[in-house]
Every structure is written in structure tokens, then in C-alpha cells.
């Protein structure tokens, strides 16, 4: 397992270096990323196996919105915005995974930019089915390019429960700014969750709910979405999660389309990476 830790450490160092480089080179500005979310995440309990990597390509399209996007100092409409992220998650142990996102935003009427990196770490407290509810904790640290927004730490608690053919997942979320004017301020509360029907092997419908309630004890500016989703097994190792989201509060986008293309990749599995004698 030492080999896995080595790899995870190298990946994290590389990400930090890349992010620092990006910040030095980025244009200045006073934009912020406090608008509606660009990525609609319900973090699942499962993670890549130890020694396995799992890349995911995230895409969001804002089909209809009266909200604005602060994009490196420009005030742009969110309608027509497309956001992309490339995520790579790596299983350090059977319970611990680390990874990163690289986010890109392409607003309507302006050029697309790399906006931020996010580092993630997740820890599962048990094997699935060991406990009544499967608990995990998930951290994401936002490292935006200069001028895009503030650094922040997001902590998600993952609770997962299978009931017959249905899986219920809930992510209560706390976010704290760690740079900028709001650094050290009240944490923001969020909640996301989903119910998925898992009986079909290849096409699994679900419904997700995502909300950002704003700073604790000051719930203004609430954004809430309901997303009918479907998971399509494109191949045995590729799953396409797509959904259409409908904003249900006035501060939300009206209509969004989300897509996550996830690759269950075993090319980095331990025996291939380290040889069978290396573990």
C-alpha cells in the first residue's frame, strides 16, 4: 500500500504546483463564483478501489436563466453558459480516495477560461452493508484562479442507504471561505441528494435535489434545483449520468442540463502498476 500513498502524494504535489502556476499567470479581476453552481454534485458513497483511478468528465449547460455570472470581472448572463470539469479520483486505500478537478467555464458571449482547481479527499467509515446507513465524509478545497473567486473548503457528509432496488443518498454540505473578504465568515449550508432506481442494468432513472442555502443563520439567496436523471451504462466500464435540472427558487437558473461521463478504469490496478509482488 505504500506505493499507493506515494502516487497519491505525487499527484497532490503536482496539482498544487499546477495551481500555483495558474494563479501566477492568471489575469487579475474581482469576479466571484458566488452565483448559482456550475456543477451539480451528489457525491456517492462508492469510491475507486485502492490503486484504481476513476476519471470523470463533467459538463453543465445553462439552458435558461435570468442569473448573472461574474467571470473574471465581467458581469455576464448565465444563460448559454457551458461549464466543464475534468476529475481524476484515485483510491489510496479501500476507504480513502483523493483526486482533483480542473474546471473550465465558457460563458455565452465571452471566451472560455480555466477557472479553478479543486482538490478532493474522501473517507468511507465502513464497508457497504456493514451499518444501517453507509457514512462517508468528503472534502473539496477550491483553488480558483486569481480574479475568479475565493478559496473555500467544502465539507460534505455522505449518507447512503439501499432500500430494495432504490438507493438514497444525502449530502449535507458546509462551505467555508478561506480567502477574500468573507474569509472566516459564517459557513454556508447546502444539501444535495438523490434517489436512484437500480434494478435495470443499463438505464437507471433517478431524481436529484440540490440546494445552496447561503450563509448559516442568514438564508437569503437560496438556490434550489430538482433534476430528473438517468444513468446509462455505455459500456461495462463507462457510465453516463445525465440530468435536466429545474430551478425552483428565483435565484436559481431556470433550466440546466448536466452530464457526467465516468470511466471505471482499472489500468492502474495494483497488479498492473506495481506488479503482483509489489504489494
Amino acid at each position, binding site marked *: 500500500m505504500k506505493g499507493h500513498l506515494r502516487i497519491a502524494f505525487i499527484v497532490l504535489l503536482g496539482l498544487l504546483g499546477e495551481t500555483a502556476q495558474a494563479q501566477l499567470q492568471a489575469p487579475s479581476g474581482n469576479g466571484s463564483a458566488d452565483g448559482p453552481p456550475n456543477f451539480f454534485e451528489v457525491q456517492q458513497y462508492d469510491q475507486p478501489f485502492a490503486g484504481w483511478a476513476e476519471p470523470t468528465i463533467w459538463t453543465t449547460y445553462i439552458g435558461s436563466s435570468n442569473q448573472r455570472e461574474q467571470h473574471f470581472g465581467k458581469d455576464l448572463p448565465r444563460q448559454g453558459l457551458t461549464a466543464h470539469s475534468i476529475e481524476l479520483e484515485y483510491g489510496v486505500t479501500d476507504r480513502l480516495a483523493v483526486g482533483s478537478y480542473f474546471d473550465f467555464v465558457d460563458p455565452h458571449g465571452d471566451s472560455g477560461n480555466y477557472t479553478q482547481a479543486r482538490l478532493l479527499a474522501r473517507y468511507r467509515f465502513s464497508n457497504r452493508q456493514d451499518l444501517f446507513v453507509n457514512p462517508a465524509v468528503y472534502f473539496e478545497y477550491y483553488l480558483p484562479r486569481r480574479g475568479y473567486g475565493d478559496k473555500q473548503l467544502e465539507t460534505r457528509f455522505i449518507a447512503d442507504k439501499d432500500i430494495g*432496488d432504490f438507493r438514497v443518498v444525502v449530502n449535507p454540505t458546509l462551505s467555508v471561505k478561506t480567502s477574500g473578504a468573507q474569509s472566516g465568515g459564517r459557513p454556508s449550508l447546502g444539501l444535495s441528494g438523490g434517489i436512484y432506481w437500480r434494478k435495470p442494468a443499463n438505464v437507471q432513472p433517478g431524481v436529484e435535489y440540490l440546494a445552496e442555502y447561503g450563509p448559516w443563520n442568514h438564508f437569503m439567496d437560496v438556490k434550489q434545483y430538482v433534476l430528473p436523471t438517468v444513468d446509462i451504462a455505455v459500456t461495462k466500464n463507462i457510465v453516463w449520468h445525465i440530468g435536466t435540472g429545474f430551478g425552483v427558487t428565483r435565484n436559481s437558473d431556470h433550466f440546466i442540463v448536466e452530464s457526467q461521463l465516468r470511466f471505471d478504469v482499472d489500468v492502474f490496478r495494483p497488479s498492473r502498476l506495481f506488479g503482483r509482488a509489489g*504489494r
Partner: protein
Amino acid sequence: MTVVTSLCHAESISTTPPRVPPSAVGNEANEAQLNHARSEGAAYAAAVAWERDGAAWSARTHAGEMLLTVAVSPAEGGWDLTNDGLRWTDPASGMVHLRLFPEDAENHRFVPGASAHVRFFGADGNELGRAALPAGIYPLTDAYGADLSIPTGVTTLIVTVDALPWRRHDPYNGDRYADETVGVFPISKLGTVQGPTASARAEAASGSVVTASNAALDATVKTMWEQSNAGAEKTDGDYRIDYAVEYSEAYWEMTHGMQHGIPHGTPPGDLRYTVENERTTRRNAHIEVAPRDARNGNFLPGLQVSAVVIGPEGPVAPPMDEPGPGAPTRAGDVPFMWHSWLFHYGQNWRVPGQGAYRLQVHFDAPTARRYGRQSGNRMAKPVDITFDDVTIKVGTK
């Protein structure tokens, strides 16, 4: 056993480079459970050492992910299953009995369900003959073996174990035996082979070498019952039948190039972990059956096990798997499943919901030859046994 002559050269063949297969804690095995596998392996290794003590000639090497022990002893004869029951066949004159004991190089457990072969080479490196080493049912120690004639002038014996074609549980530890394993043994010191057969010696054995394997496997089965949603044991004549029911789970399977029983020399396949099985409740329970020899407690590989799960509305059958190595060929088949600490026959099932079911298990009498003139006349009948009130919880691991 007829030795087939063909052409090959010993110098082109070498022992597979040794390596240690994985032993990692994960969602399929914790450290205590892996220690059960090591206890089973310790008992098996001790029995193999005991068998070597009584052999006319034996040798051992670490090849690939296995420790291969070969032993030569007097020809055995054996009990063969016929339409009229078991029939004893005396050994032909001039034969010896050659056994192969393949152990896992990490935990020393026997490697069941394999296809093994031996080739003989002379001093000039030319192949003098070859023979299959089918799995046998021995009084004491699991092995592959046959009565055969060792060609005159043999100086090298080369044993091959094909890649295991069966499915394997465990996302970490199931990633093993994907390649052919070859062991090369110089055999120039083989002298006259005479005296009591290895099976006669084993039938007279006593003490821990007889009881340790059974005790270790008993402890393993109990642990499986503690982990699983249901489990029990019944005895039927010469058999002990253990079952357990768990949540549906994934497994490794060979992706190409493998069919059970193919001749050795087939290009190796590769293993793929069927993560898709964990994404869906299309199958929501996992049925495990571990048939054992009631005489010594050993797990019985090489069977055609089938099961019927009966709910309040009648029998419930699992969806058919895609054809492939280790996959069932008929609805209800429960094929052999390698497991990191309890070998079993296993299949993911689909039941309508959590509740009490009946589990009917069937398997025919083993087709493997039984060794041991006194003890081998057993396991002639098929098994049809029913477990009532089997609690099945539904879900995926």
C-alpha cells in the same frame, strides 16, 4: 494414464518467475478473514510436507503465484464413477503415481479447479512424453495426480498449471492465477518406486495432519456465517453441504483465451473486475454453496452444482449471465468461485424481496477418481438437499 509423445525442447521452458499474489484487506476480506485463509493454508502445507515424507521422490519450487510440489509414489489404482456406481481399477504394472500439490504462494492454500499437466524430458532436452494430471479425491490431501509410466531416461519433469478459468471474488485478492504457471524439476535421482501407496499411508494417518485442515475450514465457514445474511450446514451421506447467502457482489472473470479444460499452451487471458455487478440490483443476492468431503472435511472442487431458490410465489431464477469463462451454462448453475478465504460455488441471484426462502441444492457425484482402496469407495450418489427458512436480504455489496 497414457503418456502421449510429442515434440518439445526442455531448454525453451523455464520455471515461471516467482511472485507473491496479493493479500490485501478490503471490502471482501478483513485481516482476521485473511488469517483464516492462512490457517487453511498452514494445514494444507503441513499435509503436503507429510505427503512428501512418504514419497519415493519429491521436489518443490516457487513458480509464479504458486508453490508447486510434485511427488512420486507407488501406483495407486482407484475408484472410478460408472453408471453402475464406483468401480475399482488396479494400477497397471510399471506405473507410478505422480501427484502435484499446487499451493498459493501467499497463504499456502490448495489451488482448486485448475487444469494441470506434466511433461517429461530426456538429457538431450527432447520431450519424451506428457500426461494430464486430473484432480483426484485423496484420503488426506487435495492434489492433482495420475498413475502413469515415467519414460526411460527422464531427467527433467515440467509441470504446467493453466490459468484458472473460474471467477474470483475480491477486488484485490482475486487478481491472481491469470497466467499459466510452469515448474521445472530435475528428476535424475528417481530410483525404484515401491512400498505402500501414498493413499494407504494416508488412510492410516492420525493426529493433527488428519484433523487440522477440517478444523481450519470449519472455523472459516463459521466466520462466513457470521458475516453473511444466512448460512447453515447439512450432512448427506458422504457429504457435508454448507451454504451462505450474501448480498450480490462483483468478481473477476477471465476476458478471453480461456475455456475450462482446454489444453495447456493457450495464450493467457486477462482478468477484468465486473464492477457493473455492483451498480445494479438486477441481481440482489449471492448464493454460496460449499460441498465438503464428510470424511476429511476438504472442499470438493470439480462439481456441477445447481440451486433452486423458492419463495412464496415459487422458484425464482437469476437472469442468465453472458457466456464466458466461469459463467453458468444453464439457469440455476452455481459455478466454482475462487474466494480469498472460503472457496465455494457461487452465483448472484435475483429474488423479489427480503424474506424467507427455501434453497434446494443439487450436485452429481464427483467424476474425479477416488484414491484409497479402503476409503475411496464413497461419494457415489448425487446430492439433493433442501435448506428451509433461508433468510435472504437484498442488495449489492
